């Protein structure tokens, strides 16, 4: 048992300099393992505040009585899980981590990913959680919510932040099944992009557990386009894209999809989507790619910010 003095020393170590001006996160192995465990579990229990607000707003606006009842049940499920600290949905999903490493912070990247994976495995064993991950051909389940290539890790770097940002998304299969990519041509234009998104949402009907957060990727290569679509579902509901043209497209698509009448759980109503988020990248002169990825009404995500001194902020 360390003395108080030692404990303080351990918490606020003199940052070890590995690169010019960069500090290494102390006790990284234990820290990231614990984060992997907490984020995976908490994301399934505690629904983000922006999603709760969007569901409440939708319930207040909804003119269809059946749809109002369904939205009320969704809000009740969130309350029950708050009170009992239980999962909102039985589907533990595919664990996906979105990691952004900022400036002035050094970390052993491979060790960080291994620790996050161990955290997911611990959460599955210790809670216990249903492991939803199987091998693709034999359908073998290790009962750890992990396997080859899973958890999924997206890692990028940013000069806009001075910490490591980790967002955890346990992606349920009902909404993940509703994922679509189309390599349109320049001649199909923006109109072709809009039609594809609208047709996709109408075709999905009640299957992705609407009201959904619809993520759209436009541009890029096929892989980047799909990644942008999924990343778009992470953005807090109601937050618009900084580019005014893309922001206008988001609002136009949101209102158009909500006027189809598909409604909560596809049983009719005014609320088919909580929001539409679009992310964009430049593309090839001959390409016009569009991707759609949907997130169910729970919009599950949990975020941690890890600072160079080992301090951690947990949020959404």
């Amino acid at each position: 048992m360390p003395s108080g003095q030692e404990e303080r020393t351990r918490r606020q170590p003199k940052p070890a300099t590995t690169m010019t001006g960069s500090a290494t996160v102390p006790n990284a192995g234990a820290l990231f393992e614990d984060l992997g465990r907490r984020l995976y579990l908490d994301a399934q229990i505690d629904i983000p505040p922006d999603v709760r607000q969007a569901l409440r707003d939708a319930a207040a606006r909804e003119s269809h009585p059946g749809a109002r009842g369904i939205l009320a049940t969704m809000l009740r499920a969130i309350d029950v899980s708050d009170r009992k600290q239980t999962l909102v949905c039985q589907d533990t999903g595919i664990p996906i981590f979105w990691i952004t490493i900022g400036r002035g912070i050094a970390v052993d990247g491979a060790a960080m990913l291994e620790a996050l994976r161990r955290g997911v495995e611990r959460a599955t064993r210790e809670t216990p959680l249903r492991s939803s991950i199987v091998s693709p051909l034999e359908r073998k389940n290790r009962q750890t919510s992990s396997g080859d290539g899973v958890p999924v890790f997206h890692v990028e770097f940013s000069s806009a932040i001075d910490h490591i940002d980790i967002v955890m998304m346990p992606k349920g299969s009902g909404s993940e099944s509703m994922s679509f990519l189309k390599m349109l041509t320049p001649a199909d234009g923006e109109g072709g992009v809009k039609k594809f998104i609208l047709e996709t949402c109408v075709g999905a009907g009640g299957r992705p557990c609407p009201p959904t957060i619809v993520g759209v990727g436009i541009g890029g290569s096929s892989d980047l386009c799909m990644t942008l679509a999924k990343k778009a579902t992470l953005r807090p509901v109601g937050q618009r894209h900084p580019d005014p043209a893309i922001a206008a497209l988001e609002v136009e698509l949101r209102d158009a999809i909500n006027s189809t009448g598909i409604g909560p759980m596809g049983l009719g109503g005014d609320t088919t989507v909580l929001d539409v988020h679009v992310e964009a990248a430049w593309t090839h002169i001959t390409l016009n790619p569009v991707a759609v990825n949907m997130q169910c009404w729970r919009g599950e995500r949990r975020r941690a910010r890890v600072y160079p001194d080992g301090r951690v902020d947990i949020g959404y």
Partner: protein
Amino acid sequence: MEHRLRTPLSEEDVRRMRAGDAVTLDGVVWGLRDATLIRMFDHGQPPPADLRGGVLLHVAPNVRPSASAPSGYEPMTVGTTTSLRMDRFTRALLRDHGVRAIIGKGGLSDDSSAAFREYGGAYLAIVGGAASVETEQVEAIERVYWEDLMPECLWQFRVRAFGPLTVAMDAAGASLYRDVARTAQERLAQIYAKLGLG
């Protein structure tokens, strides 16, 4: 219209339901899914319990072993899965086993709709993803059959005030899914016109 019903259900109970009505159930609900139905129909093993008048639920619950529970298991999270994968079993469940209602999410096909009309059955839609509410309404797991299929066993759940469920496909052949899809297609044409999409 709202229906508060106790299982098992009679043909009259089900034929009184109209698409859009709300149903709340007390009694027994049978949990099953892919593997359970494949064993019954593709491997020809008769169900080890009497399903006449029964209400089925498309589910694979998270459970915990419990010495005090009658079945040896207590529910942790009971949530509903997408029904369409189990669509091809509807007709035989109604015709050969006397099942009266199926609870699920996402709906079933027109062939299932025809079977509901022919034999007197209904599809009751639950709110997908709201498993914490569903779990509260399961009083106990009374019995587990075909435990080797864990978690895709045949589960006998004792439920209280289970719902509210929406009658999404009724015994008169109506289907909210069909109606909503038709409306959405019509509105899509109007949306294209409004947005200037040819």
